[in-house]
């Protein structure tokens, strides 16, 4: 019986192409909107997450001052020192590594070409707390660090601006007044999530920067790597206690440093984009429901319009159940076709919009399956009422219908 009914439904759809198309238009648009919105939302979340992952996951950024920046008035909070780095690494459980950072603006010169950049003094721990592979060369050796040797590792912006296409490693260049050897080059990281070119940098041993550039033992920020098996919250509180003690803060005083948890930012931003995705998807889902109501409307009109046809079918011996099934299957087939067209449309929309939004193209199997399932369900739900009405017609009255 199902084969018969399916054949009847397909014939009926084929005979009324325009009507069928208009019937499913709502479903097409609804499904396309839901799938495109959710896919783009997920792509945005993924993009945000990968940007944050570039900062290093499971790391804490420690800076002097309260919150962002150094604060307005009042005395300048003291910087950190190298002793803090050692103390944190040895005394706070769950800390894998601590990388000090001391940045300074400087001009890099090679072969008569100038490039204004930021040099950052740090240690080899810098590479342990965050993933930033080299494209060539090597990182600092302990000997170079302790001796404060004039060696540097170039970010890709600096490298490409000064060295063009020739290899930088092994060359000697000038940074400010200091002549130094290029020992490595960094892979491209791109823009940071907060703007700014992360590749416009030169890394040097912190001792070299302190001695030759800043002339002070200050360390302006610390990047603390946290063991995966410890929670960053736990480590953060132990770290706070230690730093308060080392910076001689009385219990009544506020922290004069701040700890920035990249995992927290990641969670917050991911939460925000996920929430936005859900809101947009909910709006799109409403259009899907409206599409379903559209199917019901046209099916109901169709039942009235086809009353005579239903009468003929009943008169020649169609069972009420068969008429019901025919209309139901028609509605389901229509909404499934609509769903499929909607899915195709959504992929096209994503392929066009994703590059404009600068998010990666993606195909999310789950949302496609859910949307298709919903469109089939809409066929069942909104097709049932018109189908039941068709099946309950009295053949005598239906045949008399003009």
């Amino acid at each position, binding site marked *: 019986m199902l084969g*018969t009914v399916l054949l009847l439904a397909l014939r009926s759809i084929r005979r009324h192409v325009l009507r069928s198309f208009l019937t499913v238009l709502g479903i097409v648009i609804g499904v396309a909107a839901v799938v495109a919105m959710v896919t783009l939302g997920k792509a945005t979340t993924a993009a945000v997450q990968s940007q944050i992952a570039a900062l290093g996951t499971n790391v804490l950024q420690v800076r002097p001052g309260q919150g962002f920046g150094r604060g307005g008035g009042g005395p300048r909070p003291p910087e950190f020192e190298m002793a803090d780095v050692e103390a944190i690494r040895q005394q706070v459980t769950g800390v894998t590594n601590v990388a000090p950072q001391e940045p300074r603006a400087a001009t890099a010169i090679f072969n008569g070409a100038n490039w204004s950049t930021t040099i950052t003094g740090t240690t080899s721990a810098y590479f342990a707390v965050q993933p930033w592979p080299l494209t060539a060369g090597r990182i600092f050796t302990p000997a170079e660090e302790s001796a404060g040797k004039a060696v540097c590792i170039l970010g890709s912006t600096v490298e490409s601006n000064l060295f063009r296409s020739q290899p930088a490693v092994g060359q000697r260049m000038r940074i400010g007044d200091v002549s130094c050897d290029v020992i490595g080059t960094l892979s491209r990281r791109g823009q940071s999530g907060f703007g700014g070119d992360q590749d416009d940098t030169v890394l040097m041993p912190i001792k070299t920067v302190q001695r030759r550039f800043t002339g002070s033992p200050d360390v302006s920020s610390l990047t603390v790597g946290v063991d995966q098996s410890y929670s960053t919250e736990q480590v953060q509180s132990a770290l706070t206690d230690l730093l308060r003690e080392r910076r001689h803060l009385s219990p009544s005083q506020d922290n004069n440093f701040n700890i920035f948890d990249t995992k927290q930012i990641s969670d917050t931003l991911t939460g925000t984009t996920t929430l936005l995705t859900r809101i947009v998807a909910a709006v799109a889902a409403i259009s899907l429901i409206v599409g379903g109501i559209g199917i019901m409307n046209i099916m109901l009109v169709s039942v009235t319009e086809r009353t005579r046809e239903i009468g*003929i079918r009943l*008169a020649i*011996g*169609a*069972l009420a159940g068969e008429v019901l099934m025919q209309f139901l299957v028609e509605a389901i087939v229509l909404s499934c076709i609509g769903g499929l067209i909607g899915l195709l449309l959504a992929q096209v929309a994503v392929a066009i919009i994703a590059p404009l939004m600068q998010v990666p193209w993606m195909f999310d199997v789950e949302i496609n399956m859910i949307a298709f399932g919903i469109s089939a369900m809409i066929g069942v739900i909104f097709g049932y009422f018109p189908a039941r009405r068709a099946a309950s017609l009295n053949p*005598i009255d239906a045949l008399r219908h003009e």
Partner: protein
Amino acid sequence: MAEAPLISLRGVTKTYGTGATAFQALRGIDLDIAPGMFAAVMGPSGSGKSTLMNILGCLDVPTSGRFLFRGHAVERLNRDQRALMRRKYLGFVFQGFNLLSRTTALENVELPLLYRGDDRALRREAAMNALDQVGLKDWWDHTPAELSGGQQQRVAIARAIVTSPDVLLADEPTGNLDSERSVEIMKLLTDLNRAHGITVLMVTHEPDMAAFAQTVIHVSDGVIGRIEHNHHGAAEPVR
């Protein structure tokens, strides 16, 4: 009549509505239809002839009385059982042709076979045979809009006989046709009745058309008035 009747009605009544608004369309009908009969039911509008045909066509049920079809009581069948009766034993031809629009003659004719669950090859063959019997074999791929009224009614007749029914019920089959086409249709029905032994029951208000039948049953005020027998053997109408 020596043969057992195909259809037998005893004291059949039909009342529409209840109480004060009740209307008795049939007031006790006794009628026997022998197999192979060609009968015309005549009567003015409101006489109950349509109600009678609806009951005979298993589209409606009597309020009281007996309805035997091949000796089986069918007056208390439910909706689906009546649908199966129509599917297996009855064929319908209507005044308004009632073909599915935008549907080829062949697909219209094979529709009853679809509901019977016949497979594709069998359907095609039976439908083409039926179209051949009504002389429209070459028109199988035309939709109703591309056919004349007479041709449409022939397709409808093909659809009614494709299942080899026991009874062909025709409700004013010539009502929408000019006299020339009407005579053609009547000849076709006569032919089917004679050559294939299909029992034909036809409602008409035109005496010219009723004259094709062997038996004319006059209905008025919900009862059978008189039954005429034409002895021409349903060959040519007496003009």
